[in-house]
């Protein structure tokens, strides 16, 4: 899980693994690893989910965390344009340090669509750059399973 701080990385994992959501924002320090087994068209895939602290001036994501990954979610907060810019930076980093890793972009907080700064053009831009883009909400549990299923499938087909 890569992305600027407070975009919803921890919330997405917690929703997916433990089916919970909290309004409270608790800065993630360091790395939290959770596991979940998913069924991808009949085969079991054991996902080791690395929830990495948010990238900003205070905490930089270590490339070592990405190196061995099979897939990266780049999480963007739809209500914060700045998180898209950081998303692009992290995409560059992921491509360099883990060239075989698949990348899926999640635009999170789609329950707040009224307040979105990220435009359809932005999303079209990501898609035309070849990325799978999924709009999610950890709060309303929208497209979370789809997101994890999609990345699992891409990783398997790699």
């Amino acid at each position, binding site marked *: 899980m890569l992305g600027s*701080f*407070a975009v919803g990385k921890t919330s997405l994992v917690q929703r997916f693994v433990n089916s919970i959501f909290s309004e409270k*924002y*608790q*800065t993630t*320090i*360091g*790395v*939290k*690893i959770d596991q979940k087994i998913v069924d991808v068209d009949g085969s079991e895939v054991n996902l*080791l989910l690395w929830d990495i602290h*948010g990238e*900003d001036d*205070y*905490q930089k994501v*270590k490339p*070592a*965390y990405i*190196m*061995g990954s099979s897939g990266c979610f780049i999480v963007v907060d739809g209500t*914060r344009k*700045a998180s898209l810019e950081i998303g692009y930076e992290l995409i560059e980093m992921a491509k360099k340090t883990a060239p075989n890793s698949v990348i899926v972009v999640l635009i999170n907080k789609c329950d707040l669509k009224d307040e979105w*700064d990220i435009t359809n053009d932005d999303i079209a831009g990501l898609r035309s750059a070849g990325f799978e883009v999924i709009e999610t909400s950890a709060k309303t549990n929208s497209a979370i399973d789809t997101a994890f299923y999609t990345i699992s499938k891409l990783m398997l087909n790699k």
Partner: protein
Amino acid sequence: MLNDLPKDIIEYLITELPPFTGVLIIRTDSEGNIIDHHGPHKEYLRLVPKVGKLIHEHVPALFSMVPPLVSPMVLHNIQSNTDVYADIHIVEANEDEYWIFFVDQSNQVAGIRDIIQKMNEEKFREETKVSLPESSEPYEVFEDLILNIENEYTATIHSKIPSWFSSLAPKYYLNSEIKFTEIFPYLEVFMFEANDFWSNKKDGKIESGIWSETIKKGKDIALTAFAIYNKGKKFMLIRPMDDDIDKEQMALQMAREQKLAYEKLEKTESKLKTLLDYKDKFVSIVSHDLRSPVAAVLGIAELLVNDKNELTKLDDFYQEMIFNIREEMIRLLDYNDKLYHWSNLELGNFKVVKEKASLLKIIEITHRTASNKLEEKGIKFSTNLKTDITIEVDLSLFQQVLNNLVSNAIKFTPKNGNIFVRVKEDDDIRICVVDSGIGIPKDISKSIFSGFSRKSTMGTGGEKGTGLGLGIVKKIIDAHGFTINVESEIGAGSKFIITIPEKAG
């Protein structure tokens, strides 16, 4: 059991029969008074245990441990003598007799002692900024899990099991073999760095990043790992970091919350600005489009008023109505023009083009423009300016400023009053419009330039106002880089002061 054994059999047991060899046994009563002892006390204790003496006088760690809360009770790695660490087992034999066993752990402790000593000294130094004296005893922290690394994936546990680890992964003991990267997947990443470091074969340590583990539902702990190289051996020490992490987390959290709040504020501000722009655009469009129909109605009213033939056919009441229509339409048109003007100023749809201009002439034009109204109310207009001053202004905009100020003054000045335009030139040029009117209440004078002062726009002759005039004045003055202020006293009149700074003039 032991009670039943003869004394010399016990002695034989613990001196000759492994695994009992080397164990010290001390028997006490229920208050901890020593009854007797067996085994190599010299190894464990500095002084010979004396019958009748309290056990904690020999081993302070056993203060109030006899009788124990549960039996048996085991205390791990207690330092009982210099360089001696023992597990101490306290077992109830019968109600008023306790057996205390000392089992040497020094070898176990020795393996990790150096490491812990080093780390703690460092920590101590960091916290207190003083160095420990050479001879000081280590203060042990047994919350650390220490692994003796065998290869990439396996290690043996080299320390007592800290409680956090037993809730995370039960069924591990001292010397258990452990596939540590399975329990701590995070260490897979750290092993890259650690292997590099170990291959240098230099004593020392490196620290990993932080990760967290869920030890039970809802309870996470943050951990760091140290890869240690000590006298040819590779260790991994895993340490919970509750205190430090709390502080760090708080600081980070606050910084980020502030940043989020700031981002939100910025967003709201730009939204608000867009909304305000919409409002101004709306006003601008509406007032622009209203102008022609209003002007058309006014034209018809003028036509009727000027057609004396037709007019005289009507009775007085209707004649007056037609005059009223004309008056109201003039006012409406004036208001509409001001609104249009004001909203465009607000939108920034204008440019100040400065040119040299004669102040005397501007004042004269103002006088002429206002002459009708002045006459109506019998107000005297005068100025102290005799010799002309050249100012650099946008002529048509600045003319409006003075016109507005003077017509405003007329409005609030009773019949037969005075309006005086005083010009003062030292470094700056100050143009004051002074009237002998009713004055402005304090609460209004604060918001008087805002463009929408709702209160008291009714003049002394019943004139109706728009409240927009002074808003327009302020906008134009600001755009020039000049300032405008108001001084006023209720009943004594008002004074509007325009200051043209030296370099701007």
